């Protein structure tokens, strides 16, 4: 009788522990890509942030873009003065990003870019408008409108770049690829980054934000 009572008490305790462990498990097994602190930024919504940023801040800022040919001349003349006058940099580093605009004639269509020639006086400046996959922070940082310290962590700040780039790929590049043919004139506003003055100026690589293709 005593043995049966012990068995019932034991079974009740075991069942209680089992129920407790079901609701409060000692450990969870999660895939590597869901482990770690990167899962913590679920509350930030880069899509809606960029949606608002694009129409309310980015497009209005286009009027403040520096002329691409003028920028090239300014960097060649005095890189530090050009950085101070027109460049944006997040934190410490030797790369500066710029919001630029210009109008040029299409001279060739390349694998992931359209090559433009901008004639300013006697100077000719080559610009490569990017038409392939867009990577990096050139647009996020090039406008100078977004501050890393306004975001809870660096992952949220980086998610902005991915979303801005996705938007450019979906909304800007298809039109550019479709309508750019050799000989037509294109007006663009976009962002460029310059790290090495000896290799990043000719051609100037620009991620376009706005493009207007003018009839030949």
């Amino acid at each position: 009788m005593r043995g049966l009572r012990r068995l019932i008490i034991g079974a009740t305790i075991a069942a209680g522990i089992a129920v407790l462990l079901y609701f409060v498990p000692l450990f969870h097994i999660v895939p590597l890509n869901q482990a770690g602190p990167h899962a913590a930024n679920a509350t930030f919504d880069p899509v809606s942030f960029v949606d608002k940023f694009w129409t309310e801040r980015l497009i209005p800022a286009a009027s403040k873009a520096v002329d691409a040919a003028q920028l090239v001349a300014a960097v060649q003349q005095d890189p530090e003065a050009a950085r101070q006058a027109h460049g944006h940099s997040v934190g410490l580093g030797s790369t500066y990003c710029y919001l630029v605009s210009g109008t040029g004639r299409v001279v060739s269509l390349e694998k992931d870019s359209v090559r433009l020639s901008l004639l300013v006086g006697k100077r000719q400046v080559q610009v490569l408008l990017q038409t392939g996959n867009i990577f990096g922070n050139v647009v996020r940082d090039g406008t100078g409108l977004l501050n890393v310290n306004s975001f809870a962590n660096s992952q949220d700040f980086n998610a902005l770049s991915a979303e801005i780039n996705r938007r450019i790929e979906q909304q800007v590049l298809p039109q550019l690829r479709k309508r750019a043919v050799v000989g037509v004139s294109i007006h663009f506003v976009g962002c460029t980054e310059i790290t090495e003055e000896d290799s990043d100026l000719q051609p100037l690589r620009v991620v376009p934000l706005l493009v207007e293709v003018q009839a030949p």
Partner: protein
Amino acid sequence: VTPLVLLLLTVLAGCGSGSPAKQGAPKIAVIISTLNNPWFIVLGNTAKEDATRLGYDAVIFDSQNDPAKEAAHFDNVIASGYAAVLFNPTDADGSVANVRRAKQAGIPVFCMDREINATDAAVSQILSDNYSGCVALGQYFVKQVGETGKYVELLGLVGDNNTWNRSKGFHSVVDRYPGLKMVAQQSADFDRAKALEVLEALLQGNPAIDAVFCGNDAMAMGAYQALVAAGKEKQVKVFGFDGADDVVKLIAEAKIEATGMQFPKLMARTAAESAAKYLKGERDFPQKTPVAVELVHRGNVNKYGDYGRKDAK
């Protein structure tokens, strides 16, 4: 390299003695996540040297990647009347409580390299822009490996934000190319010996890979060692991250493809100078200062060395 690391550790064990700082100078603690990695030794030593140069008595503490040891160091620092902490955290979430305790005790904390998941605890955080560095690395990876191929990824510590910033930056590029297949992704804890062991095991099941992406240079060195042992070092391309001197040298010798140069000396110097300014009364610091990571490859490797750019001012 292990004897070299041991030698450096021996030198570090004596830190605090023989410093040029005046006797009775305020003390600054340099708490580093691990000294079992040359990159962190450079970070810690530079922070100590700069704090000493600025007139403080600096002491290095090694957390050995153990949050419990890190917490004990903070207890020690708070009890011993340190004036400031130059801090390289072990865990983005777990280290927040330590920083808060120091703050409550009136000790300012300046994070270096690694982020904590709080913006109201440390005075400032000088952080490597890992994500962007790995975006650039990912683009170079596609250029070198091509748009088709099989690769392995060795991750760092899974609790560290940098591990995922690097991995996500890399994948934001490489995943756009469906022909590039990741056949294995495993953590080797940022550790060279563990990377050697992990890649040796992975090569058994995946003998025909084209590349290995490693979340830091210590793991890249371990991975390269595993490939040499398997006789595959010429067919498998290795990519690292950190800008460690041994990897930069192997890039120059065309044995490793590329790395992302972080700037441990720049970060340590900025943190030490911020601490000195804070202790003199300045309070206006940005919470986060990202430090750009630069891609180092065969074409530009001659511009880099000694954990930075050779032409740095």
